[in-house]
């Protein structure tokens, strides 16, 4: 077996090697586990590496030996964010309150991956309950950016992004509530997709904000991202928001919108991020796409909307962690004290902050002013996108206003941290699909860091994202 550069190894390459019998599935898994042994101590991408990974690969080898038709992701080693249940494994959402929890069933996406032949290498680090943009909120220490370990990998799916970026997994799953797949993908130089709301089942995903959450893939390239998405998407009885749908694709040459409110005329991002954005626009034009400037006037409400709707849903969803049915439990003199002690000791600072904020927003006397108003603005916000998608087939924006930032830079200041999501939250609020593709580099303190651009498309038009994304990734350097 020749030496393989895991940083440039794709699902297609792995399939070819496995099907051509140049490598066994156990050897493939072994390459990744030895890379994990080498790198994980430094980067902290995995919270746990599964000891049975090679046993899982055995099944693939047996099938191949029998000459069975290979399944869609036969033998492909995955990193799974620690908020998706894998039966019999710990799932903690990087929180102390779930540290002792062992999943009693498979999440729908895990079942789908399993049926497609995927191998699970381990569970990856994240911001606690997916609340954050840096993985600094993990109860088990931050994950580090492989390009510069003094910088954050982004978050909340930072562990999965780093695992893919550093050759510790061939692909990963993340979840995206306000940018938690796309922002770390951008910071770590990998591709990340947030699918349409309703495209992928959340059954078995530990919920953060249910009207925004969506599971999606992180991978080395657009084709890999697509291959994973095709496996995990589809209707599931256990998530009533899911629908089955035929792929939608516009017939003619694509028109790409450049939204003015994303900093076209003012200074809301680093200069090299803006250059990369404009370069991406030019690249698409050179490849025959038409681009045009469009306007989304409700954009300025995106972050305020997000920071009302999200904590409101967080406070409801996290009410279930009570020290009674699962997870951490602290003794108290009565039931109330058990609740209070378990929750106080189990939740970290950001979770507590958001629970209290959501409780405030939903409390009598404030509900109409905050939550009800936000719901109405959100309806208008969605109409902006409905209108603009009559003019254009997709939108092109930067993914994040900057490359990866240093540890601690935004940690003590929630509002500053939240601003990191300025370009990504809109897709969650509108329920549309969005893809981050590596594009260009930015130098900070002498280190060359990856930058990313984001494509957004109408509901269920993921294929448009893959088409345009594939062109952009060809020019990523």
């Amino acid at each position: 077996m020749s030496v393989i550069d895991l940083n440039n190894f794709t699902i297609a390459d792995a399939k070819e090697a496995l099907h051509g019998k140049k490598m066994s599935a156990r050897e493939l898994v072994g390459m990744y586990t030895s890379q994990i042994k080498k790198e994980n101590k430094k980067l902290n991408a995995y919270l746990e590496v599964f000891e049975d990974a090679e046993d899982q690969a055995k099944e693939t080898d047996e099938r191949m030996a029998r000459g069975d038709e290979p399944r869609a992701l036969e033998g492909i080693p995955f990193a799974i964010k620690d908020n998706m249940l894998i039966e019999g494994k710990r799932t903690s959402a990087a929180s102390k309150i779930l540290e002792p929890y062992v999943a009693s069933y498979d999440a729908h996406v895990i079942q789908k991956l399993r049926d497609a032949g995927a191998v699970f290498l381990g569970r990856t680090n994240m911001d606690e309950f997916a609340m954050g943009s840096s993985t600094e909120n993990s109860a088990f220490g931050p994950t580090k950016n492989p390009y510069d370990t003094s910088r954050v990998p982004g978050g909340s799916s930072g562990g999965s992004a780093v695992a893919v970026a550093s050759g510790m997994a061939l692909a990963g799953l993340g979840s995206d509530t306000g940018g938690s797949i796309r922002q770390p993908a951008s910071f770590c130089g990998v591709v990340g997709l947030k699918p349409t709301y309703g495209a992928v089942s959340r059954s078995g995903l530990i919920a953060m904000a249910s009207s925004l959450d969506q599971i999606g893939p992180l991978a080395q390239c657009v084709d890999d991202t697509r291959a994973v998405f095709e496996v995990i998407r589809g209707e599931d009885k256990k998530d009533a928001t899911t629908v089955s749908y035929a792929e939608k694709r516009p017939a003619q040459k694509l028109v790409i919108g450049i939204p003015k409110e994303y900093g076209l005329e003012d200074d809301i991002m680093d200069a090299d991020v803006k250059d990369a954005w404009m370069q991406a626009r030019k690249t698409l034009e050179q490849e025959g796409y038409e681009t045009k400037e469009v306007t989304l006037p409700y954009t300025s409400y995106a972050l305020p909307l997000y920071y009302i709707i999200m904590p409101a849903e967080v406070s409801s969803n996290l009410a279930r962690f009570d020290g009674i049915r699962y997870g951490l439990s602290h003794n108290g003199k009565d039931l109330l004290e058990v609740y209070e002690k378990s929750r106080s000791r189990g939740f970290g600072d950001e979770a507590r902050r958001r629970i209290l904020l959501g409780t405030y927003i939903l409390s009598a006397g404030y509900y109409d002013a905050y939550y009800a108003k936000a719901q109405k603005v959100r309806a208008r916000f969605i109409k902006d996108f409905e209108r603009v998608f009559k003019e254009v087939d997709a939108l092109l924006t930067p993914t994040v206003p900057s490359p990866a930032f240093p540890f601690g830079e935004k940690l003590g200041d929630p509002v500053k941290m939240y601003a990191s999501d300025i370009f990504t939250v809109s897709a969650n609020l509108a329920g549309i699909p969005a893809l981050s593709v590596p594009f260009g580099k930015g130098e900070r303190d002498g280190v060359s860091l990856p930058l990313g651009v984001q494509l957004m498309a109408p509901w269920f038009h993921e294929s448009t994202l893959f088409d345009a994304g594939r062109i952009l990734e060809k020019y990523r350097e």
Partner: protein
Amino acid sequence: MISKKDIEHLAKLARIDVSEAEKEKLAQDLQAVLAYVKTLQEADVGDESFTHFEHLETRLREDAKENDLAEARRTQQLLASAPVQEKGYVTVKNVLGK
């Protein structure tokens, strides 16, 4: 303005203990976020109702029973997650004082 007293009240509603030292900082943080979202109050919403995605509809299913064996297995698995259990039940402290 969010006061320390407000934080105490919210903490009680949310079943979270907040230390004296934390109260001040939490009040400031919540205040900062609420100041940040204030612009929403001025947004024009016309006669808009709540958010709704066109492709979503309420779906009902039969209230069907699983087969006994599968159900017994699931019950056991779910019970096994509970920190304190006894004879097939989740055990909790007294709700009311004796």
